[in-house]
């Protein structure tokens, strides 16, 4: 296992022994240009600034000898022989803060059910806490469960010592079962972070649309609290979609924010209201409500989408039909093992969405 820094964005990722640079970057959410994926076309050419790499099966036409001599490499074929730094042909994001990933241990300060299947968990950190951008996530270790699980932070960065997680119970999932039933106040939890490129592009002046599905409220909650606390004046709308009235949470908080801030609108939406719900609000899936609210026209906005893969896909479709395109759409997909089959094979047409 080696560490790889990617310039000009300054992010660092871990690369396993026989893993390609491209694979490690894509898995870490860093998009590098690529096409054929097996060393023939040269689309993924990068410069190696520091460290040793192995060129693997790169074609001698796609990567000429003199280019190898100049420190060029094909990310899809190259593996690392040491820690390394590369420069890739990717755009630097002026709004990315590049906070370093660190390891933390925190104590569970509180936990309560927010809805029948979402548990809120608050983790207290010592010292100065964690530096992150609203919208980013952490990787949490679960006792007795191999691997780590990703959870978005629902607290704003202004509260770096009290982390808030929204954990939806996944049917048959061991990790979320433990977080719902095994975890108690006072437990110590290990995690690393912050991760992810889902954060508000504050340098963009456009009005903002937040589309959240279920526990996908977490990142938008952190983003909205952060923006409003900073005095952001851009119009912003949060559409939060859930099934029934019982699945809605933090509604009072957002209603209160909407009353205090004229530029913030809160739109809760139920896709399957039950007979006792006494609901006079929006009915339908998030993308349907968004389409109605905006008359199907989204050009001139920035959209931040957070939730399960099917909801994200439906929202991207509606936004693009309404003339909002990739450069203005940001997504955080909450995929579980159950979504594996639903994720379609993708073409290289889109980079991030």
């Amino acid at each position, binding site marked *: 296992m080696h560490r790889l820094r990617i310039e*000009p964005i300054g992010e660092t990722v871990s690369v396993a022994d026989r893993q390609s640079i491209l694979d490690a970057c894509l898995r870490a959410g860093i998009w590098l*240009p690529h*096409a*054929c994926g097996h060393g*023939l*076309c*040269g*689309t993924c050419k990068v410069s190696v600034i520091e460290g040793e790499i192995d060129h693997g099966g790169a*074609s*001698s*036409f*796609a990567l*000429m*000898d*003199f*280019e190898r001599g100049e420190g060029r490499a094909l990310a899809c074929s190259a593996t690392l022989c040491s820690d390394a730094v590369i*420069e890739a*042909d990717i*755009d*630097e994001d002026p709004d990315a803060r590049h906070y370093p990933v660190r390891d933390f241990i925190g104590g569970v300060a509180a936990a309560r059910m927010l809805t029948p299947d979402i548990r809120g968990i608050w983790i207290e950190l010592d010292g100065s806490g964690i530096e992150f951008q609203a919208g980013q996530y952490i990787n949490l270790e679960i006792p007795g469960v191999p691997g780590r699980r990703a959870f978005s932070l629902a607290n704003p960065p202004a509260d770096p010592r009290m982390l808030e997680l929204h954990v939806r119970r996944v049917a048959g999932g061991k990790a979320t079962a433990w977080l719902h039933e095994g975890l108690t106040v006072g437990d110590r939890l290990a995690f690393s972070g912050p991760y992810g490129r889902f954060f508000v592009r504050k340098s963009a002046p456009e009005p903002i649309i937040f589309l959240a599905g279920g526990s996908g409220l977490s990142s938008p909650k952190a983003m909205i609290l952060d923006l409003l606390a900073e005095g952001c004046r851009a119009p912003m709308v949060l559409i939060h979609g859930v099934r029934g009235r019982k699945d809605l949470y933090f509604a009072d908080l957002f209603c209160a924010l909407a009353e205090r801030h004229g530029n913030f609108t809160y739109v809760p939406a139920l896709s399957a209201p039950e007979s006792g719900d006494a609901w006079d609000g929006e009915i339908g899936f998030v993308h349907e409500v968004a389409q109605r609210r905006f008359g199907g026209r989204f050009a001139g906005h920035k959209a931040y989408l957070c939730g399960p893969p099917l909801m994200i896909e439906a929202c*991207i*479709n509606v936004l*693009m*039909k309404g*003339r909002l*395109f990739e450069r203005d759409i940001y997504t955080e997909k909450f995929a579980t093992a159950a979504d594996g089959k639903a994720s*379609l*094979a*993708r*073409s*290289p*047409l*889109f980079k991030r969405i």
Partner: protein
Amino acid sequence: MPATKKLGLKQKYALMTRGLDWETTYQPMEKVFPYDQFEGIKVKNWDAWEDPFRLTMDAYWKIQAEKERKLYAVIDSISQNNAQLGITDARYINAVKIFIQGVTPLEYQAHRHFAHVARHLRGVGPRIAAQMQSLDELRHAQTQIHTISHYNKFFDGMHDWQHMHDRVWYLSVPKSFFDDAVTAGPFEFLTAISFSFEYVLTNLLFVPFMSGAAYNGDLATVTFGFSAQSDESRHMTLGLEVVKFILEQDEANLPIVQRWIDKWFWRGYRLLSLVGMMMDYMLPKKVMSWAEAWEMYYEEQGGALFADLGRYGIRPPKHEDVARKEKDRISHEVWAIFYNYTHAAAFHTWDIDDEHMRWLSEKYPKTFDQLYRPRLLMWRDMARAGKRFYNNALPQLCNLCQIPMAFTEPDDPTTICFRSSELGGDRYHFCSDGCKEIFDQEPEKFVQSWLPVHQIFQGNCGGASVEDVLKWYHLNLGADNLDYAGSPEQKMWDQWMAGRHVAQAAE
């Protein structure tokens, strides 16, 4: 002094390539750029073009020069080592003949027209991309000519390919395809060639030829293939960027792009039926069947692409369902056309042996034994009886794709598919709904088609007899054409192989 941050590649590239798109003052912009608006494509902001690759001219020359040095070193060694002896069988070379006659001239056409597009788009990003592609295509044409010229020293049918490309009946299929593209506006050209061909269908052209070469000991073709493929990434990403750019610029562009995608999918697919024949019938050592290639490269990869394009409101190309229905038969139907007319072609066809038939039967379990094996066996019997079948009637051609009318009904592989349209008192014939619909969209364009059979009957092709016409094609009669069995090429190959056996026996 504050530390200045290093420029990113994007910024460096922008500084070197932007600012070339000034507003003209001596002449109005419409006069300087007369071609980029008449198609109805609305562009609000050329600067929204995202360079799909950032290669400076300086780096471009350096990299391409090195690729040339490598390729020409391989070509030298091919010719010094008599690499023609290393191929699996002389029959394989017929695939190379089709390539130099049918594909290489298209590379040259692409070179010319990308230069035209590079001049006539007013956005600087696509201009630079088209300029580099123009140079790439010239390099591809040139390296193919130089590589294949080694085979031309020994084998027939490759001595005057550019002349043949402009005249020979079956070469009017690729020629008219590209003529259609270069006589369209710049955006249709880019959608046709960069998107539909270079992105959606290119794997079905290059993979069969290059893998076919690799499987059959043709190091020369493999090498120019790798060399060309290292440029393809730019061409493919250009194809994607063009379509994204047009679709995002204005929603009025959507139906125009959809119509072009429908049209150029079908045109490209019809053109590739020649490649399907080559894959299934002409490679001594097989790579994969046409049906397998279609499934992998179109149905799977194309499926993912059109799922993504669906976000823009683009639907998969019209008639892709017909292509799916035809995948078990077009290669057999096209082989039959060429077996019929080998006396008028600049490559050979031959009796398909039992082992090859077993392979076809395995790859096409639903169609080969039922529909095509009996015909091949009949032809074998006729040839053994000294009556090798040649069809001496000139075929009716589809007015659009220009392939002889031998394709069958989508739902009935035993009935020839005939479609037609009437215009100005004349009836125009088509092989499919796809071809008829393309004609009906722009009849004024396609009534002008140069149809080889019509031209022969009108007396424009050298004379009234088959021999006159073949001489006008510059065919070497009795060498370039007719069955492989009994050809000078077969005689030469058998002598080479016999010499090899003697040498081995002597060791």
